[in-house]
């Protein structure tokens, strides 16, 4: 089974062997980063003055910063001057022309995940006709959203159409100088999603980048801003379970969530970018800053993530619990196989009274994978009766992988109750034996046990996503056993 897994990766990774794709097309800026590049970038996107100032401010801060080195990951230094920071959407001509040209193993993976044929073409990078099923689907969705007053559009469109909302909220959760990668993102971000849910509106459907076809090629520096006004609700899905074709090695996205009084935001991620080959060559560096702020009382932000891809994942979706009785949740499954490295976790900052947070993190390490949970629970002085419960479980498969837990608990209020629990174990021989005895193959048995281990997180995912995530986990673990 391991050989097939390799072939899949080989195929997806074909483009990565030589590093970044740097062929210069007509509408691409040459590699390198300076103020001129940012001005050009901003001009090309026809941005208003405040955006340019904001980008330049971020760039100046970034210049004074050093790359963080504290994470439990190991990689060769990145040449930030070797990246092209603006590239017009790629032409599809250089992709495969039909599904027949795509590796059958990749198609097999798609079939296992139950992905429809048209979408398979799309994911494999096959040039598709202008008439594409999902486009019409997207249009239907758009009219439904407009009816409810929900704004859901590419970030660049929001800058043009709703500059007042963008300027009011952009950078208020993740400031430009927050960290090295957030600063870089702020300076050069290409595009992303913008969501605004008006007061009292329950978003009529789950919003998904998957359907936001027109802004697909958002590139490596994605920026997402979601604002849920008072008493509104939104569920947002990011990513998809199928392995995506992607040309950029460094991904430094920023996601900002703002939940006003009584609002709820549920943000779900499934990340399955190219993890590199078995020896750890290539693969995406996923350095993401995600943070939500519960601005008003009784607000709630919930992060759910399934991280199976990327060579390196460096990601800490956080919640600032500012409003009284606001609550934050973090549910995570992170899987590292082969040479993948993940340093992921969350930060829960309790500021308001009676705030609560829950952290459930499940880490699975196989092959030579290194999986670290790093979390911070901080209770400030005014956070009366704050409550936190954290649970971090690790599952180890094979004796060359590693599982690490680095929780930080900082408590400055005596009425707070903070609990952290962590355990590390392997799949029991007796559990495996039990399943094998009942006729399950070893691989199915492992997949079943692992899915059971992750159940607490999967049940937080929207239904279709959860089913796909389970299948994905099984596929990602192929070759890890035996």
């Amino acid at each position: 089974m391991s050989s097939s897994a390799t072939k899949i990766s080989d195929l997806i990774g074909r483009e990565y062997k030589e590093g970044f794709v740097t062929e210069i097309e007509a509408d691409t800026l040459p590699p390198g980063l300076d103020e001129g590049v940012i001005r050009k970038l901003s001009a090309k996107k026809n941005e208003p003055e405040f955006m340019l100032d904001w980008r330049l401010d971020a760039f100046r801060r970034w210049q004074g910063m050093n790359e963080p080195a504290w994470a439990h990951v190991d990689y060769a230094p990145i040449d930030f001057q070797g990246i092209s920071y603006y590239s017009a959407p790629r032409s599809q001509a250089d992709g495969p022309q039909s599904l027949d040209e795509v590796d059958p193993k990749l198609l097999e993976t798609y079939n296992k995940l139950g992905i429809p044929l048209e979408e398979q073409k799309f994911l494999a990078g096959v040039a598709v006709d202008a008439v594409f099923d999902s486009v019409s689907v997207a249009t239907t969705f758009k009219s439904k959203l407009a009816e409810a007053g929900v704004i859901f559009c590419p970030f660049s469109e929001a800058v043009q159409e709703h500059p007042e909302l963008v300027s009011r909220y952009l950078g208020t959760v993740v400031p430009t100088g927050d960290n090295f990668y957030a600063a870089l993102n702020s300076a050069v971000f290409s595009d992303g999603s913008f969501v605004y849910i008006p007061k009292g509106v329950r978003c009529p459907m789950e919003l998904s980048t998957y359907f936001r076809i027109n802004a697909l090629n958002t590139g490596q520096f994605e920026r997402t801003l979601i604002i849920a006004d008072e008493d509104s609700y939104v569920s947002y899905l990011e990513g998809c379970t199928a392995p995506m074709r992607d040309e950029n090695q460094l991904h430094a996205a920023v996601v900002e969530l703002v939940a006003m009084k009584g609002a709820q935001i549920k943000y779900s991620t499934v990340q399955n970018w190219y993890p590199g080959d078995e020896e750890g060559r290539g693969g995406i560096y996923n350095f993401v800053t995600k943070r939500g702020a519960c601005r008003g009382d009784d607000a709630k932000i919930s992060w759910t993530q399934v991280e199976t891809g990327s060579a390196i994942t460096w990601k800490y979706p956080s919640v600032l619990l500012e409003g009284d009785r606001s609550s934050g949740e973090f549910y995570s499954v992170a899987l590292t196989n082969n040479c993948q490295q993940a340093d992921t976790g969350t930060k829960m900052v309790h500021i308001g009274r009676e705030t609560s947070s829950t952290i459930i993190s499940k880490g699975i390490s196989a092959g030579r994978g290194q999986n670290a949970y790093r979390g911070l629970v901080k209770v400030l002085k005014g956070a009366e009766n704050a409550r936190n419960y954290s649970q971090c479980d690790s599952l180890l498969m094979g004796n060359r992988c590693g599982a690490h837990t680095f929780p930080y608990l900082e408590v400055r209020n005596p009425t707070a109750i903070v609990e952290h629990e962590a355990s590390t174990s392997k799949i029991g021989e007796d559990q495996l034996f039990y399943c094998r005895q009942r006729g399950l193959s070893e691989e199915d048995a492992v997949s079943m046990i692992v899915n059971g281990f992750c159940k607490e997180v999967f049940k937080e995912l929207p239904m279709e996503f959860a089913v796909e995530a389970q299948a994905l986990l099984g596929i990602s673990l192929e070759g890890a056993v035996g």
Partner: protein
Amino acid sequence: MSQAVSTAEDYLAAQRLANLPAVGTAWLDIRRNQARSLLEGVGLPTPRQEDWKYTNIRPITRSTFDPVSGSSGWNDQDFLESIQLPGLNSYRLVFADGILVRELSSCDGLPAGVTIASVAEILRADSAKLENLLGSALPTSPHGFTAMNSSFIADGAYLDIGPGIVLDKPVELVFICACAGEDRLGMPRNLIVGRPGSHASVIERYLSVVEARSLTNAVSEVILEEDAQLTHQRITDESSRSFHVGGLFARLGGDSRLDACSITLGGSLVRNDVLVNLDASGATVDLAGLYLARGRCHIDNHTHVVHNSPSARSRELYKGILNDRSRAVFHGRITVQAGAQQTDSEQNNQNLLLSREAEVDTKPQLEIYADDVKCSHGATVGQLDEMAVLYLRSRGIGESQARGILTHAFAGEILERIELDNLRLHLDHCVSHRLSSVERVVS
């Protein structure tokens, strides 16, 4: 605004001038020099270093302490009697600012095969004995204070428990600081060796003779060979103007066992580092700790257990009670190296916050590179169970007394592990005295 701040250079300069024992002994000179360059390289710790994130040593660097490398002549029999543990019969060494006070020490009736001596004396008389032992249990990259201690090595206790010997009485090491006035720096360097099959119990006590500003930078190394057993108790109860940086660094051989209990009751800024390397299969370590922080005191416990071999076992429980404006830090790290299969490891840290101004920062960490292991850790921060308080109150016990009883019971889980009755009773008394009444934290 610029205030004088003492730096590593000040202590390096003092080291050059100090009259240290056995200078000229080749191996010792090399080690002292290595430690000097280490200190030169890393400097004194700053909060920028991850291991010192929550502990700022500024209160220490505000003064420059004078390292003590020879006897000051301090010899206060009355003080010693005042701090004696009632009913405890022990072999005893007393150190003033880190230097042995022979007149106050007594090791009569020591069985053959056991050495209890001053490190300085052994270094002068027979330094070769310590060549392969001294420094062998230290961390590979020690922090500035440990390096500073290694660059001096003026005195300390040397214990060697011979093969198969079960020591009849505990060994009591009393370290008294502030004997020679303000701003002294005592740097005891202790070495405890348990030969195969030996059993011993050691009590390290750190006390102040007067309320004076002082710094103690103590390092104890423990080396346990096969089947050896050591019970190690460390009690820090210095004055509220004392700074204390202590280290317990141990390496454990096959089937050996270390029970180490650290009780911190007083001091202005206390930092304890513990490193235990489980080097062979069957080794067991049980770490326990209790810290009682009051006033503006800052207590930092850093522990690191490294499983280097298969089938070793580690247990750890640290408990803290914080009052007033105190702050406590706990950092517990467990590393399971590749190949250390069948590791069984548990770690727990529990904290009770009794005041609105207190703060606790805890960081339990697991780093695991083997798959057939059983590891868990936990950390809690909270307050007394109101139901339990109600239970006691409904039986006619006053509120603050009820809280005192419950807080005392919280500490009891650590205290009851101490096997020496006299010591346990003494500590229990100290704790209950300090917790006689606990007020409710009103929100």
